[in-house]
């Protein structure tokens, strides 16, 4: 054992180191080379979570109920994963709104409610102070053990407490602004976290590897001992799965909402990006510090310790082994753990008490004049006093009441208290409807349940309150039994309290938030918190006066209105015109901003109040000019837009008009061959009205269109017959639009076709006309010959046998002439017949021969040499009359140009897949200037009256209908050659 005073010196030394470290850190911060603004110090500072509970209590709990201690550290580990989302958001909001405590956070969120934040402060103080006290108790008791004494070294404890208070004051409450960071303090805390870890690991290593043979050894031996059940969880063990889950939940809320955690994680944070590293560094710390907990617990048990004393195994094991060094190390670790908690928690609590309880009270009741004079000094010292007060309060708690409770027990009660804040904070961050009344009711309900289910039983047990009378009835009733509210039995007390606490908390919070309305302040705040709405940063500048603020308001709201607003605000906040501190002036300014935002919109209002309070006349003029310009431009744009809209409508009408009035039928069809448009002309042509066509398949409406028409791509034209004897020429073009579809143009060519036929007929008749003279001759002459011979024969004397030769010769001649006539008559008969439109399988050479026969014997053409070269060609499906017409036309033309004789060579042969018919004459040829026009209708080189000019155009038409081609080759002076090519299908 140690001598008391040696220990004391040691402790002083340790604290001295702490002071030095903090001081160094502060100096570095001032000079700009901060050693605290990094994620490693940040993460270590978060480890202030591990108090003497971690150091001693975990081992104690492990020895009594196995793994359940782990929940306290698993919870924060899991929660750390959400920090990326949750903590960053909280930090951002806190920094933006200059929030420095958890009570402020809640208060600001719910419409800057002072009452709410005050209430939260009370709950926090009630919930945390016992816990704080227990830390002091731990210090005292461990000190006692180490010093080998049995009675408490309370006095030493008192001194230590004082020193801690001084430390907290020096490094935490030097300046007034609580939103400033305390780098020295944080560095000291981080340092202590390191000490804790190292100490624990060392002790753990000592016990596990020095006193035993490693993890395996300890675990095996425990398994075989009476304590084997500690290795398991669930049914049959000390810890039910429900309790496990509840404890897990508790630690999750604790890591977020314990005032000291909020302080180090949010207020002391210098860079949000540090959170990312902390997300794994902190859980890693927790993992490391817990590795040896079980070995230590089991080791203690195996070494003969009892479960009841397991809390101090950390000390008693090395002491029992006579290892004073290790014991000292343990003590230091535990000391560091406790002091860290005490310092930060007292700072956090005191800030809350100051800001939410004391200051508002002071504002309300203090004398104005007195107040403003001593304001700064007054405030800072009150804060210091409060810090001391918190610690002192904790000390007294520890000394008087703390005997009865275990560290863990009190700690868990504090954790349960923190869950009271969970709904209002978590929901407050994500649910805009969450309002002040709901938060208040929820927190109240939660607090009442907590107090009733956890504190009251404890107080009863400690004898602080007695059971009698009505109170006794209450306690022992079925419904309101603190251990089984509303009859819910079977849960461990933590789960039980948690369940009912959260239930009522949430119930009131949600129902009141839904059924009551928020005021505008609450709405604004909820926007700020939930949607991260950032109103323009309002710089806290003091270089404007109240008069200036009022003047601005006057400009926009009128003199009387402005005055009223200012006056009422001052009155409401108990301020006077002439004695406003910078802070109060800022409040007035904020109020002015709020009012102006209502009138002008927040953007403009902010601009007006932001930099200069008064905008100059010139600036005002410019502002209104630009506003006017904007509205003018807008108006103009609107006009232009209306104009464009009108033009568009007109254009649409126009194009529809065109389509409707077109003299051709226009039909559009979509990709599924359904009709999408049917114009007026189509209605006329087909007698099918537009409504009947809507979305019908085009092929069912017009069945005379071949089914495969719409299959092929590319533009196509075809002539079709309807059952009603109409002829339509249709032109199909696919849409270029990728959605497909076609546009089909219909032309009623029935009349035209009729006229064409008539024309063909007329030309034929004209040809006939041309031939008539010839034909008369063709027939007339042989007829005259026959007649003359017959008359001669008739006049011959009967007996003249000498004329026998003449007789027989004449008869022969007569016969041949008759045959000649017959042939001509036949050819003519064929020709004069009205030709049909049908194509039949015909023998082309025969048609050609027949045509040639028509003219062969025409004496007019006697001097023309007619050469024929007709080869073997297959039968072809043609219209024989029409082809004859063509041949005749070409032959006659040739004859026409070879008036003074020449040669006409007519040929027919098969060439590739074609049958080629050629007409080559040796006439004067066709001039190159007219050769392109010869197939044009009504084009003729013959003098007026002699040629109709239709012949070749009709030939062209006929050949084209046979899917053939007719071409001409000619040169002036070198004859003309016509070539007809017909496909030999």
């Amino acid at each position, binding site marked *: 054992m140690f001598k008391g005073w040696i220990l004391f010196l040691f402790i002083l030394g340790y604290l001295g180191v702490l002071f030095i470290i903090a001081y160094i850190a502060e100096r570095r911060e001032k000079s700009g080379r901060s050693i605290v603004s990094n994620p490693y110090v940040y993460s270590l500072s978060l480890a202030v979570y591990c108090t003497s509970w971690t150091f001693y209590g975990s081992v104690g709990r492990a020895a009594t109920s196995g*793994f359940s201690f*782990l929940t306290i550290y*698993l919870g924060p*580990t*899991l*929660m*750390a*994963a*959400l920090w*990326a*989302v949750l903590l*960053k*958001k909280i930090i*951002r909001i806190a920094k933006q709104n200059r929030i420095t405590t958890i009570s402020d956070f809640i208060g600001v969120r719910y419409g800057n409610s002072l009452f709410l934040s005050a209430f939260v402060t009370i709950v926090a103080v009630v919930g945390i102070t016992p816990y704080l006290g227990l830390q002091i108790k731990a210090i005292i008791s461990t000190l006692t053990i180490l010093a080998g004494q049995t009675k408490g070294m309370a006095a030493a404890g008192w001194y230590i407490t004082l020193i801690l208070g001084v430390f907290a004051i020096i490094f935490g409450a030097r300046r007034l602004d609580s939103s400033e960071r305390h780098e020295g303090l944080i560095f000291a805390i981080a340092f202590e976290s390191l000490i804790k870890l190292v100490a624990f690991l060392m002790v753990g290593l000592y016990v596990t590897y020095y006193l035993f043979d490693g*993890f395996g050894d300890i*675990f095996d031996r425990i398994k075989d001992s009476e304590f084997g059940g500690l*290795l*398991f*969880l*669930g049914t049959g063990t000390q810890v039910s*799965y429900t309790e*496990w*889950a509840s404890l*897990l939940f508790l630690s999750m809320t604790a890591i977020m909402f314990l005032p000291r955690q909020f302080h180090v994680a949010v207020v002391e944070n210098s860079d*949000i*990006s540090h959170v*990312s*590293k902390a*997300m*794994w560094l902190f*859980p*890693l710390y927790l*993992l490391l510090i817990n*590795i040896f907990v*079980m070995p230590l617990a089991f080791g203690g048990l195996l070494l003969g310790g009892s479960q009841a004393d397991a809390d101090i195994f950390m000390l008693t094991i090395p002491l029992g082994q006579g290892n004073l060094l290790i014991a000292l190390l343990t003590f230091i670790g535990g000391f560091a753990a406790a002091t860290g908690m005490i310092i930060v928690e007292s700072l956090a609590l005191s800030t809350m008490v100051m800001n939410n309880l004391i200051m508002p009270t002071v504002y309300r009741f203090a004398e104005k004049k007195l107040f403003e004079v001593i304001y700064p000094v007054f405030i800072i010292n009150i804060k210091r006093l409060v810090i001391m007060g918190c610690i002192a309060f904790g000390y007294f708690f520890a000394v008087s009441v703390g005997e009865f409770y275990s560290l863990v027990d009190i700690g868990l009660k504090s954790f349960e208290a923190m869950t009271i804040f969970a709904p209002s904070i978590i929901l407050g961050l994500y649910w805009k409807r969450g309002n002040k009344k709901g938060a208040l009711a929820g927190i109240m309900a939660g607090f009442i349940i907590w107090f009733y289910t956890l504190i009251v039983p404890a107080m009863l047990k400690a004898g602080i309150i007695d059971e009698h009378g009505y109170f006794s009835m209450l306690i022992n009733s079925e419904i309101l039994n603190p251990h089984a509210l509303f009859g819910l039995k079977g849960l461990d007390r933590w789960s039980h309290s948690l369940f009912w606490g959260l239930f009522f908390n949430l119930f009131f919070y949600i129902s009141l938030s839904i059924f009551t309305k928020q005021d505008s302040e609450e709405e604004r705040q909820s926007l700020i918190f939930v949607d*991260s709405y950032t109103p323009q940063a309002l710089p806290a500048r003091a270089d404007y006066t109240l008069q200036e603020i009022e003047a601005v308001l006057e400009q926009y709201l009128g003199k009387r209105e402005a005055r009223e607003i200012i006056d009422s605000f001052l009155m409401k906040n108990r301020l006077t015109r002439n004695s406003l501190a910078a802070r109060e002036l800022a409040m007035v300014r904020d109020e002015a901003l709020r009012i102006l935002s209502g009138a002008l919109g927040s953007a403009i209002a902010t601009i007006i109040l932001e930099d200069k309070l008064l905008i100059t006349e010139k600036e005002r003029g410019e502002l209104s000019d630009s506003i006017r310009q904007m509205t003018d431009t807008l108006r103009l744009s609107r006009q232009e837009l209306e104009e464009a809209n009108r033009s568009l409508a007109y254009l649409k009408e126009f194009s529809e008009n065109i389509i409707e009035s077109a003299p051709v039928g226009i039909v559009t069809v979509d990709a599924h061959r359904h009709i999408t448009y049917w114009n007026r002309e189509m209605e006329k042509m087909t007698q099918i009205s537009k409504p009947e066509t809507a979305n019908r398949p085009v092929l069912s409406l017009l069945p005379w269109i071949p089914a495969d028409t719409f299959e092929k791509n590319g533009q196509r034209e075809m002539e079709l017959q309807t059952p009603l004897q109409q002829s339509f020429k249709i032109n199909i073009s696919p849409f270029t639009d990728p959605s497909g579809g076609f546009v089909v143009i219909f032309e009623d060519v029935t009349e035209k076709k009729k006229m064409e036929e008539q024309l063909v007929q007329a030309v034929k008749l004209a040809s006939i006309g041309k031939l008539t003279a010839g034909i008369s001759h063709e027939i007339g002459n042989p007829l005259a010959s026959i007649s003359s011979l017959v008359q001669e024969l008739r006049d011959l004397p009967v007996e003249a046998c000498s004329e026998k030769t003449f007789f027989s010769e004449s008869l022969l001649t007569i016969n041949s002439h008759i045959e000649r006539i017959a042939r001509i008559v036949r050819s003519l008969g064929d020709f004069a017949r009205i030709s049909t439109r049908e194509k039949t399988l015909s023998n082309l050479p025969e048609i050609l021969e027949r045509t040639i026969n028509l003219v062969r014997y025409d004496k007019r053409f006697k001097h023309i040499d007619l050469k024929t070269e007709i080869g073997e060609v297959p039968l072809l499906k043609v219209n024989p009359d029409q082809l004859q017409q063509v041949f005749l036309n070409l032959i006659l033309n040739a004859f026409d140009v070879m008036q003074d004789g020449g040669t006409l060579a007519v040929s027919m042969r098969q060439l590739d897949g074609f049958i080629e018919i050629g007409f080559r004459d040796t006439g004067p040829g066709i001039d190159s200037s007219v050769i392109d026009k010869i197939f044009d209708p009504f084009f003729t080189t013959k003098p007026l009256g002699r040629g109709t000019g239709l012949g070749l155009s009709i030939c062209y038409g006929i050949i084209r209908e046979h899917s053939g081609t007719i071409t001409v080759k000619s040169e002036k002076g070198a004859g003309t050659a016509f070539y007809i090519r017909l496909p030999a299908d």
Partner: protein
Amino acid sequence: MIHFYMKNKEFWVFLFFLGTLLFNWPFLDIFNMVLPFYFLGVWGLFILVVYLVVTTGDRKGGERDEDV
């Protein structure tokens, strides 16, 4: 891709719930026999996953800290 996770709040919520599930009744019952190893293993793994996602996220593009 991991950078994407960093910015994606759903991933963290998912990880949180997964972890909570792993550290609660169904799994604790399954692994009741080897709880020490189970705790150490899953806890370590959890930390590792967070570490990996956070560091690669940082390397890729740094923080853009949008509010979620």
